[in-house]
C-alpha cells in the first residue's frame, strides 16, 4: 500500500464529518454514516461494560470456592455479561455500525430508505440500554440472559422487569434496522446493480434483516408476557395455574437461536468481502455463498428445539429438531469450503483485515463443528448445561462474530475515518486476540466434557487447573481487544490520509472519496461489471 506521508489534506474536501459541527449535528443527524458512528460509540461503550463483567467472572473462577464475589453477585455478573454482550453489542455490532454505513454506499444510494426510522432505531437502542444500565446499577438481575421462568417470573427478587423492558425496547431498534435494509436493498439499487452483482456483504445483510424482522417480535412478546408475570405473579408460564414453563422456552428460543445467526451472518458477509479483496479474486461459487446466507436465515428458524432436549420436551419433537439442526450446519460448511477455495491461485496479502478473516474461518469451523455435538441427541444429554456449551457459543460469537466485526472495522476504517491505522500494531493485536481467545475457550471444551456445569459460582476442586488456564487466556484476550481501541482513535488524528480505494477493492463504496461526502455520490453510479471483478482486464477499466 502506498505509504502516503503525513501531509495535511490538500483542500478542505467536503465530507460527512466536516459538513456540520456541534452536538445537534450528531444527535439529530439523518445521515446514515453519522448514525453508524453513533452506534459505533454506543456499542463500544457496552462492549467495555460487558467485557469487564467477563474479566470479573474469570478472576472469580480462578479459585474453586470463588475468589472475588458472593454467589449472588456472580449470578448477576454472568446475567449482565450475557444480556449486555448479546443484545447491546453482538446483535447491533455489524448490522448497525458497518451495515448502516455501507448498505447505502454499496447499493449506490444517497441514504437508507427511511433515515428518520434509522435515527429512531438508535434512540430506541439508547433507551433500552438505559433501562438495562439502570437495573445493573440499581442492584443487578440474576436470571441469566435466558430469563427462564418460574425462577425469573416468581422467585427472583432482582430487577427482572427493568431488564425485560430494556431488552423489549432494544428489540425494536433491531427490527427497524432490518426493515430499513430490506427496503433499501430491494428498492434503491443503482442502475445495473442486479441481485447477482451485489457484494456478498449485502446478501448477508439481507439474510440478517429477514431474521431481525421475523424473529425479534416474538422475543418482544415473550419478554412482555414475562414482565407481566413478574409484576402480577400470575401468567401463562406459572405452574400453579397449570401454565408450562417450557412454553416460555419455546417462544424464547424461537427468536434466540436465529439471533445467533443474526450475530454470525454479517461476520460472514465481512469475511467474504475481505477474502475477495486481499486474495484479489472473485469469491469461489458466488451464487452458492449468496444463497447459503439466505438458507441459513430460513433454516435457522426451524431448529430451536435443540436447546430443550433435556428439559422434558417430547422425545419425538427432539428427533425433529435434531434432524433440522444437522441440516442447518450444511450451508455453513459450504461457505467455509468456498472461502478456502477462493484463496486457491489468488494473490494474497496479509493486511490486518485478512488476518482477522482467516482467523474467523478457522475459529468458526471449530465453533460450527462443536455444534454438531449438541445437535445429536445422545451427546447433548451429557453436554447440555455444561461448559462445553459455553465454549461452543463463544467460539461462534467471539471467534466468529467479534473477529468478523474487527476485520470489518479494520477493512472499512479508511472509508469511515479517511485515515489509515498502523498495520504492524493491527497485526499484533490480531495475533494476541487469536492466542488469547484459544487459551480462554479451548480448555472449556474439556471442562464441559468433564461435566462442569455452567453458571456455577463455585466448583469442585478438580476443575481448577482448566479454569485457571481459561482465566489466563481471558486477560490476554482483554489486552488484545484494548490495543485496536488505542491505535484506531490515534489514527483518526495522526493516521496517514487514506485515498478513496486504499486496498484496491471492488464495490461502489470504494468509488466515492474517503470519507464520503454527505450525499455519498456526486451522481448515482451505473454498474456494468460483475461483483468482485478483480481479474486483469477489469482492473484497467476501473484503474486507481
Amino acid at each position, binding site marked *: 500500500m502506498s505509504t502516503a506521508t503525513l501531509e495535511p489534506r490538500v483542500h478542505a474536501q467536503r465530507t460527512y464529518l466536516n459538513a456540520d459541527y456541534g452536538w445537534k449535528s450528531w444527535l439529530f443527524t439523518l445521515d446514515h454514516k453519522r448514525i453508524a458512528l453513533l452506534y459505533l460509540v454506543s456499542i463500544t461503550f457496552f462492549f467495555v461494560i460487558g467485557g469487564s463483567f467477563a474479566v470479573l467472572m474469570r478472576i472469580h473462577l480462578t479459585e474453586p470456592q470463588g475468589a472475588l464475589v458472593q454467589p449472588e453477585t456472580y449470578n448477576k455478573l454472568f446475567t449482565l455479561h450475557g444480556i449486555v454482550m448479546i443484545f447491546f453489542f453482538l446483535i447491533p455490532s455489524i448490522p448497525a455500525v458497518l451495515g448502516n454505513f455501507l448498505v447505502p454506499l454499496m447499493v449506490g444510494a444517497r441514504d437508507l430508505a427511511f433515515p428518520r426510522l434509522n435515527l429512531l432505531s438508535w434512540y430506541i437502542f439508547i433507551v433500552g440500554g438505559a433501562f438495562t444500565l439502570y437495573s445493573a446499577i440499581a442492584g443487578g438481575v440474576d436470571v441469566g440472559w435466558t430469563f427462564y421462568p418460574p425462577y425469573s417470573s416468581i422467585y427472583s427478587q432482582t430487577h427482572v422487569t427493568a431488564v425485560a423492558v430494556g431488552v423489549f425496547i432494544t428489540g425494536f431498534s433491531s427490527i427497524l434496522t432490518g426493515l430499513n435494509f430490506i*427496503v433499501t436493498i430491494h*428498492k434503491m439499487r443503482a442502475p445495473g446493480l442486479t441481485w447477482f452483482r451485489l457484494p456478498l456483504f449485502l446478501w448477508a445483510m439481507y439474510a440478517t434483516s429477514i431474521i431481525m424482522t421475523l*424473529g425479534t*417480535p416474538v422475543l418482544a412478546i415473550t419478554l412482555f408476557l414475562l414482565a407481566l408475570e413478574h409484576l402480577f405473579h400470575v*401468567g*401463562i408460564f406459572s405452574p400453579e*395455574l*397449570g401454565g408450562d414453563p417450557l412454553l416460555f422456552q419455546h417462544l424464547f428460543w424461537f427468536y434466540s437461536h436465529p439471533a445467533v445467526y443474526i450475530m454470525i451472518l454479517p461476520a460472514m458477509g465481512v469475511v467474504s468481502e475481505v477474502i475477495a479483496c486481499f486474495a484479489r479474486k472473485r469469491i469461489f461459487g458466488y451464487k452458492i455463498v449468496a444463497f447459503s446466507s439466505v438458507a441459513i436465515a430460513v433454516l435457522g428458524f426451524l431448529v430451536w428445539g435443540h436447546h430443550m432436549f433435556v428439559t422434558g420436551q417430547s422425545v419425538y419433537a427432539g428427533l425433529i429438531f435434531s434432524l433440522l439442526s444437522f441440516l442447518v450446519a450444511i450451508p455453513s460448511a459450504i461457505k467455509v469450503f468456498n472461502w478456502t477455495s477462493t484463496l486457491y491461485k489468488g494473490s494474497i496479502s496479509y493486511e490486518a483485515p485478512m488476518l482477522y478473516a482467516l482467523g474467523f474461518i478457522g475459529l468458526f469451523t471449530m465453533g460450527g463443528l462443536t455444534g454438531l455435538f449438541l445437535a445429536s441427541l445422545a451427546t447433548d444429554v451429557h453436554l447440555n448445561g455444561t461448559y462445553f456449551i459455553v465454549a461452543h457459543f463463544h467460539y461462534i460469537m467471539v471467534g466468529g462474530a467479534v473477529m468478523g466485526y474487527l476485520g470489518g472495522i479494520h477493512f472499512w476504517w479508511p472509508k469511515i475515518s479517511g485515515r489509515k491505522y498502523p498495520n504492524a500494531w493491527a497485526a499484533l493485536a490480531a495475533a494476541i486476540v487469536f492466542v488469547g481467545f484459544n487459551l480462554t475457550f479451548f480448555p472449556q471444551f474439556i471442562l464441559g466434557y468433564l461435566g462442569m456445569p455452567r453458571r456455577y459460582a463455585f466448583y469442585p476442586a478438580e476443575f481448577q487447573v482448566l479454569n485457571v488456564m481459561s482465566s489466563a487466556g481471558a486477560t490476554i484476550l482483554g489486552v488484545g481487544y484494548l490495543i485496536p481501541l488505542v491505535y484506531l482513535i490515534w489514527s483518526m488524528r495522526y493516521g496517514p490520509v487514506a485515498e478513496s480505494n486504499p486496498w484496491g477493492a471492488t464495490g461502489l463504496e470504494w468509488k466515492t472519496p474517503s470519507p464520503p461526502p454527505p450525499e455519498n455520490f456526486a451522481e448515482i453510479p451505473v454498474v456494468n461489471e460483475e461483483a468482485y471483478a478483480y481479474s486483469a482486464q477489469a482492473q484497467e477499466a476501473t484503474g486507481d
Partner: protein
Amino acid sequence: MTEAEAHAQPAGLAHQFGDLEQQQSAATLGIWVFLVTEIMFFGGLFASYAIYRWLYFAAFEGGSHVLDIRLGATNTMVLLASSLTMALSVRSAQTGNRKATVIFLIATMILGGIFLGIKGVEYNQKFVEHIVPGLDWSPEGTVLSRLAPGGLEHAQIYFFFYFAMTGLHALHMIIGMGLLLWLVVRAHKGAFTASYFAPVEVVGLYWHFVDIVWIFLFPLLYLIGGRY
C-alpha cells in the same frame, strides 16, 4: 447535489429517492414488512393461546361463555365500518379530494373511539365480576365457578389471554388513533396530493391490519365451542 437540483424536485420527495414512484413503492414495502413483524408480534400470543386452548379446552370454553357475545359482534362491525371509512379516505386522498379525506379520517376516528368505548364497558364488566387475573381475581362467587369445575386456574389463564390480546389490540388502536389525528391535521393543511399520499396509505394499511387482528380475536375469544 447542487442547490438548483434540490429545488427542481417535486414536493414531498426525499433526497435519497430518485422519483416519487420509487419513494411510494419503498413506503409501501416498508409498511408491509412492518405489518409482518406485527403478525409475528401478535403471533407469539396466538401461538400460546392455541396451545393452552388445546390443553385446557373446557376451561377456555367456560371462560368464553362469560363474555358478552352481542358486544363482541357489534364491536366487530364497528371496526369493519372504520376499515371502510379508512379505505374511502385513502381513495379520496388518491383522487386529490382534500375535504372527503378529512371527513373520512374523522369518521374512522369516531368509529375507533366507539370501539374503544365498548371495549371499556366490557373491561368494566370483568372488574365488576372480579375476574381480572392479577388485579382482582376471586371468581368463587361469580358465574365462572359454576361453569368451570376444577379448572378455575385454567380459566385464569384464559382471562390472562383475554386481557393480554384485547389489551395489546386496544393499545394498537390508540396508536392508530394518534396517527389518524396527525393525518387529519396534515390533510387539513393540504399536504396530500394525488401524487403524494403515501402517509395516508401507510396509516390505512396499519389500520386495516389492526382490524384483521380483531377479525381473528372475536371468534377465537368469544365463540369458543359455540353457545347452545
